[in-house]
C-alpha cells in the first residue's frame, strides 16, 4: 500500500467511481463462489434439476449482490448515525413478531412479507452490531474500564436476546449474545470481565436448561445421546452422520449420494446442505467448502484490521463473527457436535430471506471496506 492511499480521507464526498474502485472485488468473487457451491448443492438436492431450488437461489444471489454493492456505496458515517435507529427498528420488529408473527416449529419467528418469511432476529444481529459499534466508537481504553459506561450497551444486548429467547429460539439468542460479546471484546473490554461473563454462562447453563422448552431440552438430550432414539429426535443426526461418513475421502460422486437422494437425509436443501455436499464430494469436497468459508470469515477480519476507524473495525468484526457463527453452528450441527437448531449455511442453503440478510450484512461490511480511510469528526476521533 502506498502512502498516498493510506492517507485519511477528510473529504466527505468522494465520488462513486472511486468508491467502486475501493470495493474488494476478490471478496465479492469469494462470495460468488460460495453461492456457486450453493447452486451445485441445490441442483443435486432437487434430484438433478435447477428447479425448485438452484435457479431461484442464483436469482436471489444476484438480487442480494446488487443490494450489497448498493449498501457498500452508502457512507459509513451515515450508517453510524443511523445505528441506534436501526437497533430500535430491530427491537420493534422483534416485538411485532412476538405479537403477530407466524408460529413455526413451536416458536414465533416469522413475518410474512413479499412472499418470503423474514426472521427479524437475523436483522437484529446486524442492527445490534451497528448499535454497539456506534456506542463503543467513542470509547477510549480508560472509558472501557468504567463499569457504568458498559451498562447501556449491556442493556442493548439484553433486550433483543431476551426477546429472541421469548420466541423461543435458543440458537439465535446464543449467537446474538456471542456476536454482541465479540464487539465488547473488540472494543477493549477487560479480560477479567470476559472471564467473569464466561464463568457466568458456564455456571448458569444448568439453570438455563431447567427453563428450556421441552423441544429444546429434547434437542440437547438427543445431541448427548443420538442413538437413544434412532427413529425419533436422533434420526436427523444419525442419518446426517451416516451420509457424511459414507462419503469417504472422494465422495459418492455428484448426484450419486444415496442418503440425500433417497430422502434419508432430512431438510437436505436447508440445514443439511453441507451433509449433502460432503456425501457426494467426500472429505476433499467438504474441506474445500470449509476452506472457502474460512477465507470469507478471515477476509472479513482482514477488513476489520485494515479499517482506520473504531466504528468500522467493530462493525466488520461483528459481521464476520456473525458469519462465522452461522458456519460453525451449522457444520457442527450436521456432524452431531452441537445440538440441532435451524441454522442454515449462509449463501449455500435454500432460503430467500436468509440470503438477503447475509447480503445486507456483507453490504455493510463492504461499506466499511470502501470507507476504511474516512475520517469521523474531530470530537469523536479524540475522545
Amino acid at each position: 500500500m502506498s502512502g498516498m492511499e493510506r492517507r485519511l480521507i477528510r473529504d466527505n464526498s468522494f465520488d462513486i467511481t472511486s468508491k467502486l474502485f475501493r470495493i474488494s472485488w476478490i471478496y465479492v468473487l469469494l462470495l460468488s463462489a460460495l453461492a456457486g457451491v450453493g447452486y451445485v448443492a441445490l441442483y443435486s438436492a432437487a434430484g438433478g434439476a435447477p428447479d425448485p431450488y438452484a435457479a431461484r437461489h442464483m436469482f436471489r444471489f444476484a438480487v442480494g449482490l446488487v443490494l450489497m454493492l448498493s449498501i457498500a456505496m452508502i457512507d459509513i458515517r451515515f450508517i453510524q448515525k443511523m445505528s441506534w435507529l436501526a437497533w430500535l427498528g430491530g427491537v420493534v420488529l422483534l416485538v411485532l413478531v412476538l405479537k403477530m408473527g407466524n408460529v413455526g416449529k413451536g416458536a414465533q419467528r416469522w413475518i410474512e412479507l413479499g412472499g418470503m418469511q423474514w426472521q427479524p432476529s437475523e436483522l437484529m444481529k446486524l442492527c445490534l452490531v451497528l448499535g454497539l459499534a456506534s456506542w463503543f466508537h467513542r470509547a477510549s481504553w480508560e472509558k472501557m474500564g468504567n463499569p457504568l459506561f458498559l451498562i447501556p450497551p449491556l442493556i442493548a444486548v439484553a433486550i433483543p436476546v431476551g426477546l429472541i429467547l421469548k420466541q423461543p429460539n435458543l440458537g439465535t439468542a446464543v449467537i446474538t449474545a456471542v456476536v454482541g460479546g465479540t464487539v465488547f471484546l473488540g472494543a477493549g473490554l477487560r479480560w477479567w470481565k470476559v472471564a467473569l461473563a464466561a464463568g457466568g454462562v458456564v455456571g448458569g447453563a444448568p439453570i438455563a436448561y431447567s427453563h428450556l422448552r421441552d423441544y429444546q431440552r429434547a434437542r440437547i438430550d438427543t445431541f448427548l445421546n443420538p442413538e437413544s432414539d434412532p427413529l425419533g429426535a436422533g434420526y436427523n443426526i444419525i442419518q446426517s452422520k451416516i451420509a457424511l461418513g459414507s462419503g469417504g475421502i472422494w465422495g459418492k460422486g455428484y448426484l450419486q449420494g444415496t442418503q440425500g437422494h433417497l430422502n434419508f437425509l432430512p431438510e437436505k436443501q436447508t440445514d443439511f446442505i453441507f451433509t449433502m455436499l460432503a456425501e457426494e464430494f467426500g472429505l476433499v469436497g467438504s474441506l474445500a467448502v470449509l476452506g472457502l468459508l474460512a477465507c470469507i470469515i478471515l477476509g472479513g477480519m482482514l477488513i476489520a484490521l485494515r479499517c482506520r476507524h473504531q466504528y468500522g473495525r467493530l462493525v466488520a468484526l461483528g459481521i464476520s463473527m456473525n458469519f462465522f457463527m452461522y458456519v460453525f453452528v451449522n457444520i457442527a450441527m450436521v456432524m452431531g457436535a452441537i445440538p440441532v437448531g435451524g441454522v442454515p449455511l449462509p449463501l449455500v442453503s435454500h432460503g430467500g430471506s436468509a440470503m438477503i440478510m447475509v447480503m445486507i450484512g456483507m453490504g455493510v461490511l463492504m461499506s466499511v471496506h470502501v470507507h476504511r480511510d474516512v475520517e469521523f469528526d474531530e470530537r469523536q476521533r479524540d475522545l
Partner: protein
Amino acid sequence: MKREAQRSGVFTRRALIIAGAQVAAIGGLAARLYQVQVEEGARYTTMAESNRISARLIAPPRGRLLDRGGAILAGNRLNWRALLVAEQTGDVGATLENFGRIVPLSETERARIERELRRHRRFVPIMVREFLTWEDMARIEVNAPELPGILVDVGTTREYPHGPAMAHVIGYVAPPAEADVAEDPLLSLPGIRVGRAGMERVHDTVLRGRAGAVQLEVNAVGRVIRELDRREGTQGQDVNLTIDLDLQKSVLERLGDESASAVVMDARNGEVLAMATNPSFDPSLFNSGVSQAQWVAWTSNRRAPLINKAVAGLYAPGSTFKMIVALAGFEARVITVGETVYCPGYLDFGDRRFHCWRKYGHGSVDMRAAIKVSCDCYFYEVAKRVGIDRIAAMSNRFGLGTKLDIELPGARAGHVPTRAWRIAQGKAWNIGDTIVHGIGQGFFQLTPLSLATMTARLATGRQVEPHLTRAIGGTMQRGSRPEDWPALGVAERGLQVMRDAMWAVVNEQGGTALIARLPAAPGSTAPPAQMAGKTGSVQVRNVTREQRERGFKSENLPWEYRPHALFVGYAPHDAPRYALAVVVEHGNAGSEAAAPMARDIMAATMARDPVIRSERPRVAAGGAP
C-alpha cells in the same frame, strides 16, 4: 492520536486472537470431518447401504401333491385379489363406495380395510377382497375408471380339489408358527403356508422349495426405487403319491356312512393305492382358519373325523390274526399242517371255559380247515402250545406291533403283548391270557395299515413296507420294485398252507367269507380273479354267560358296544398283487359288514389294474401355477 493508537493496538491484538480462535474452531471442524469421513467412513458406508438396500424374499409356488397317475391332489389355485393403494385415489371413501356397488363389502370387511388404511403408509397396497370370481374381476376391470387406486393382483392359495376324499393322506397347510419362521426366512412372507399334517407335512421342505431374494433400493419411507439384484429361488417340487385317486374315491364311497377305514396296498412293493377313512373333513378349511364351532363339531364327534383311522386307529385283529398263530405254531413245530384238533364248541382250561364262536363246535379240524371255518378251539390249542412270546415274535415279522415305514405323521406302531410286557406292568401272564390272544382278542392294538401289511407279506413272502411316496420331482423313490424288499424268512410251506386256507375262506363251500367272492369282470368271459382273505370280529365288551344263554345277538346292542368287523385279503390268489384290510367300527361280524365291502373294493382295484400297472408317474401338464 495517542489514544487512537492505543485503541487500535488493543483492537488489533484482540481481532487477531478472535481470528485465531475462529481458525482453531474451523480446524476442529475439519478434524472432526476427517474423523467421520475417513476413520469411521467404512462403518457409515455399511450403514448407508443397509439404509438403502432392502432384501425381500420371493416365495416360489408350493409344489403339488399328485396321485400316481398325475392327478392333482393338492394344487395351487390362482387367488385374484383386489388391492387398494390409498395414494392413487383422491377419495378413498368414494372408491370403496363404488367398489362396494360392484362387489358387496360387509361391515366387518369395511372395518378391517379402514383399520389397515390407518395402519399403513399411503402407498402400501391394502387387500380389499380376495378369492374374487372371474365375474367380479371382469366387473372391476370394466369399471376401472370409477375405481382409482384399485388394482387387481394374483397370488396363489392351496387348493384340495378332492377335499375330504384325500384329507387324511394329504393333510393340510396352515400359517406357520413363530418357531418355524426362525428356521426358514421364507416363512416370514405374508400368505405363506406350511404343511401341518399328512403328506403336506412329510414333504414340506421339498414342496416349499427355497426362497428367492430380490434386492431393492428403497428410500427413507420404504418406497421401492429400483431393483438392484434378483436371485431366483428353487421351485417347490411336485410329489407323486402311490395313491390312485379314482380307487381312493371308490373306496371311500364304498365305506358309506360307516365309521370305517380301508387300506389297499400293492402287495409286491408296499405302495399304498388307497387309504380311506370315514368320516373325513375338508382340509381347505385349515387354509383360511377353522372356526371354533367347526373345531368343536370335529373333536366331539365320536366317529373322530380328524383321526386317520387307517394308521392311528387301534383295534384287536380278531380272527384275522389266526394265520400268525398258525405260522408261529408251525414254525415252532408244536403242530403240523395235518394234525387235527377236536372242537366241541369250547375249550376248558383250569376253571375257565373258552367258547368257540360256533356253539356246537366244528368237530375235528386241521390247520387249513381251522382257518377256513375260523375255528376258535384250534387256535386256543395252538396258542396254548406255542406261547405268547413266539406269537408276538411272529407278529412282529409280519409288521404287526412294530413301527412301519409309513411316512404319515401320527402313524401308530400299535402293540402286540408279550409276557415281559405284562410283567413289567406288575401283572402275571397266565396261560388263559395266551389262549384268548390265540384268536386275536385281548391286549392287541393294531392299525388297519399293519393288517394290510401282514396280508401283503403273507401273500408275497416279502418284507414289504407300506409307503405313500412314489416319486419326487419325477424321480422314482426306492421301494417301487418288488426286488427292493427282502424275503420274509418264513417257511414257504407254512405260507402256502395259509394262502390255500385263505382262498378257501372266500371261495370254498363252508368258508366264512363266501360273500367276498369276486364277481366276474363286466364284459369279460374269462373266469374272474379270486380273492383270498380272512374275516374277523372283535368284541369290544365281554359277553357274559347269562347273555350267551339267552341267545345273545350283538346287533341288538347299542352302536358303541357292537363288535368291530374286520376283513383282510389279497388277490389274485394265484399271483398276489393287491392286499387290503377293512375295519368297520362296531360293524358286527366281519363276514357281514367288512367282507362285502372288501369284495367291492378288491373288484374296483382289479378293474383299475391296467391303470395302476402303468409304471411311469405322469405329471399333470402345466406345472405348478
